[in-house]
């Protein structure tokens, strides 16, 4: 990946120098071992900080939406002739571009407001999984080299295979290369294993209603309502989330299990045709709630009923956002 990093820095530096973009959202090295963290680069000399590796976890489309919204709010009281445009550069892999497509389809901003620096992706490390892989020991230092993750831990040196600690969503990713881009860094990465995409869901579907409900309530019991999942999600961009509305108040703010379930269920339903399986919500969850099981079920239904894969192309509009009077099957309304 080092070659890609060098090219990425060069390209980012050029874009800033030529004033093609106002800011570049990318990743830099984190302060903890085996981490990378989002960063915002505005000066060409700072592009040296940029990294691109298997530790880059967050879906940066979230920040694209945030920055554009902030900018638009700041321009509200500016005279039309003085209004300034802001162009956001973003380092984007497959799932990031899917989220950008969703934003564009939902008309959150114009295509000319975002400059997409496409990067190939062969998956990222599951941050919680790797801790489990080393038996819960403290990871003091780590590096990825030749398909191996080498670590110094509080229980001595440990090595695990990269493929064993790959995040679940990356393992079965269908779109690991950018779908749209303004510039592409490096050549496309080899395909992952999309055929296994719904294996977990199929197993889950095979269970009884009681078992599925038991699994759902068990997972929801872990939730502490920190809202990290919602905050990290590029598709969760409502200016005020329904859980924060107070007139009327839709859900209680306490620890009552039903309130937590209502929050999560509502979020899940809002993800229909909008979840790109980037894994951000799962990676940020401090308690390890298995949100993916439910999101993938919705994703599978969405594909089977409407043939839609969220954000997979600019033309394929999200099922809840399109109306086709000749082909919509509406029998279910009359024959439930």
């Amino acid at each position, binding site marked *: 990946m080092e070659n890609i990093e060098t090219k990425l820095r060069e390209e980012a530096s050029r874009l800033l120098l030529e004033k093609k973009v106002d800011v570049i959202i990318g990743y830099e090295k984190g302060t903890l071992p085996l981490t990378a963290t989002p960063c915002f680069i505005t000066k060409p000399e700072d592009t040296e900080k940029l990294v691109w590796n298997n530790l880059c976890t967050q879906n940066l489309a979230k920040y694209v939406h945030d920055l554009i919204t902030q900018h638009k709010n700041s321009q509200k009281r500016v005279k039309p002739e003085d209004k300034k445009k802001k162009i956001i550069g973003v380092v984007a892999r497959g799932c990031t571009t899917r989220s950008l497509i969703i934003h564009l389809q939902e008309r959150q901003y114009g295509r000319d407001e975002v400059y997409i620096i496409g990067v190939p992706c062969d998956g990222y490390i599951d941050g919680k999984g790797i801790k489990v892989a080393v038996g819960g020991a403290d990871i003091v230092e780590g590096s990825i080299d030749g398909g191996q993750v080498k670590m110094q831990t*509080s229980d001595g040196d440990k090595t695990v295979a990269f493929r064993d600690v790959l995040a679940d969503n990356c393992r079965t990713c269908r779109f690991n290369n950018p779908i749209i881009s303004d510039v592409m860094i490096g050549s496309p990465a080899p395909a992952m294993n999309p055929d296994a995409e719904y294996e977990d869901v199929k197993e889950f579907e095979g269970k009884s209603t009681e078992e599925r409900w038991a699994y759902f309530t068990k997972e929801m019991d872990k939730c502490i309502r920190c809202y990290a999942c919602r905050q990290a999600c590029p598709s969760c961009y409502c200016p005020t989330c329904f859980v924060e509305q107070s007139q009327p108040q839709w859900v209680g*703010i306490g620890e009552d299990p039903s309130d937590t379930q209502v929050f999560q269920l509502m979020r899940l339903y809002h993800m229909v045709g909008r979840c790109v399986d980037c894994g951000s919500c799962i990676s940020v969850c401090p308690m390890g709630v298995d949100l993916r099981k439910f999101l993938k079920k919705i994703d599978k239904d969405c594909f089977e009923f409407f043939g839609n894969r969220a954000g997979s192309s600019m033309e394929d509009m999200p099922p809840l956002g399109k109306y086709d009077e000749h082909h919509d099957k509406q029998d279910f309304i009359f024959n439930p």
Partner: protein
Amino acid sequence: MEKRLIKKDALAGIAKKMAEKLHVWAPVKKEDNVLFAPLKKDNEPFFAYLNSKNAPKNVFFPHTETMMKYTRTPNGMVFSSEENKADEAVLFGVRPCDAHSFVLLDKLFDQEKYKDSYYISKRQNTTVISLACVKPPYSSCFCTSVDGEPVSADGADILLTDIGSDYLVEFITSKGEKLASYFGETKADTVAETKKNEIAVKAKDAIKSKIPAHEIKPILDKNFDNPFWNTIHGKCLACGTCTYMCPTCHCFDISDEVKGSDGVRIRSWDSCMFPLFTKETSGHNPRSSQKERWRQRTMHKFKYYVDMFNAIACVGCGRCVMSCPVNIDIRKIVEDISKL
């Protein structure tokens, strides 16, 4: 006070025996997380842990707590108070940093001007048994920078230290001594004590992560408007992970949940990271963006708490450092402030 020795494998048995009579909170493994949970017949204490996922502050300051209940009747409102209902409890096996957090929380919830009866009733009825860190649990631990030590009795009623073959049991307070009968008969000799002191020194030296926490108060006094505050929050997701995991974060919200003619007034955790925090009825929010919220979090821990109680509201457990989804590192923030 008295000191005793117990065999190392006896610890879980002691906790379980206590749980027969008292309400015992202990570290329990739940899937991949270690959490403080009530010890019941169907779960086992797990003492081979580094530190619990979330801080045990919820024992005294639960996420959600009923403050009072009320009912509307034809004769007017009838109120019932819910306070002072705490059972006698034991918090078994907390790390010294977390025990230190109770001392800090006491300063706020149990002060001369204001006494929080909900917190105090639980705190007074609970015996805290600390389990010393003979080696630092995480490389991101920085307790020694914020007035803590890995082997410390601060905030504890009983301190347990692993001295090799046995645990040295030190009864720190008379509250702790009341549980002495659970810890066998073997009196500790001076050899054990010397061993413990050696271990304590070694453990302290092993904390390598250090931050200039005490140096930044005068800098914060003068730098409320410094452009530095523009540099932290950009990547912040505005989730509540850091504050919910933190042993000393204690901001709460009070709300009424009404169903028909019955109402419950609850208080629940709030977070300065949330957009709703400090939002006023008018819709105005004096902390309108994540920038102001991050300044508040930093100031509260390293300036306001020092102003009010002469103590830093951080125990160096590193939970916020490890749990932050986007790696916002309080150690780096403090470091950067010290250079302003």
